[in-house]
């Protein structure tokens, strides 16, 4: 039987399709990340902490919402680890498990202005809510 911690790790690895063991810990993902300063845990730490099975800490962190999904880390990783996908899987785990979304439709009106494209609202809802 897997305990909860292991189950979470399995789920993140399976859903993201990422094998954290491929990481050689060069840190290029964090070296390339444009949102590094906004994050508490950085892309290379996501990979390492998933490998270690400490997913709950990541789920609780605001860092999961700071990733831009710009895929620069994925593109530049020499080992094909795809950190952005692992962050996405942890983020989905967080919003799915919590049962409370990071952003809801009610939050939207105050966040938008007349010029904002629909695409931004759609994307934000996809990224921050179930």
């Amino acid at each position: 039987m897997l305990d909860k911690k292991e189950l979470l790790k399995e789920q993140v690895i399976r859903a993201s399709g990422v094998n954290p063991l491929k990481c050689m810990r060069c840190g290029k993902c964090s070296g390339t990340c444009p949102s590094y300063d906004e994050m508490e845990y950085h892309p290379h730490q996501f990979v390492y902490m998933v490998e270690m099975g400490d997913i709950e800490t990541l789920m609780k962190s605001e860092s999961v919402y700071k990733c831009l999904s710009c895929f620069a880390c994925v593109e530049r990783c020499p080992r094909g680890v795809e950190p952005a996908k692992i962050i996405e899987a942890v983020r989905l785990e967080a919003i799915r498990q919590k049962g409370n979304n990071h952003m809801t439709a009610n939050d939207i009106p105050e966040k938008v202005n007349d010029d904002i494209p629909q695409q931004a609202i759609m994307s934000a809802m996809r990224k921050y809510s179930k």
Partner: protein
Amino acid sequence: MIKVSYFPGCTLRTKAKQLDLYARKCAEVLGVQLCEIEDWQCCGGVFVSNNDEIASKLSSVRALIAAKEEDRPLVTVCSACHNVIKQTNYQITNDESFRNRANLYLSQDKEKREPYSGETKVMHYFELLRDVVGFDKIKEKVVNPLTGRKIAAYYGCLLLRPGKVMAFDDPENPAIMEEFIRAIGAEPVIYPYRNECCGGYVALEDPESAKKKSNAVTNSAESHGAELAVTACPLCKYNLVQNGSNIPVVYFTELLAEALGVKEDTNA
């Protein structure tokens, strides 16, 4: 006349009408007919990379099927739609489990269709210009060359990454937009931030964060001598402009229309 299927996307119906309008007008001049697929639905804005995410990708699959039924490539203009649809197509081609599950969902639709497994070719309007029309032909059709204008091509992330999936151009040293700029008679400005992120959807969650990224892009373009930035993405444009770009940001179709002489206010 070459016929291609066309997926405009929500934003092109609202905030980014110019992007759509001029895409159509220019296509006509270049001998391509954009056949808008019927009853298209929003692509979802972003591609969710999780394997277990199915439902949000179905609208893209339906669009892909519509194009398959016409036996035409599916062309998009908006970078975001393009990214979502191309990634979905890649996943349905290469991930058997996703393919089976997606087809299972679609078998619930009213119309009965063959299972879809990635047959449609997904093209961005830029790829259409490069691979189908050809930049040489554009050069011939230009009536209003934008001579002397120094233009920064802003790729952003969505057109290029993941490079293996998008197969759009070299993700670190792309050339397609620069070639486009040359084709309409202007001078491309190469700057290091052309393939960095504008901040994207984070604009809602953390506007400050998005501002930092956007400023880095526009400052870099400006410092390399650009007087204008060009993009294919409404969200990129929004972020760059909203965060106080010192140089104007326009859609590439606007420039193309100007060069081809089909922009309404060219002489205004």
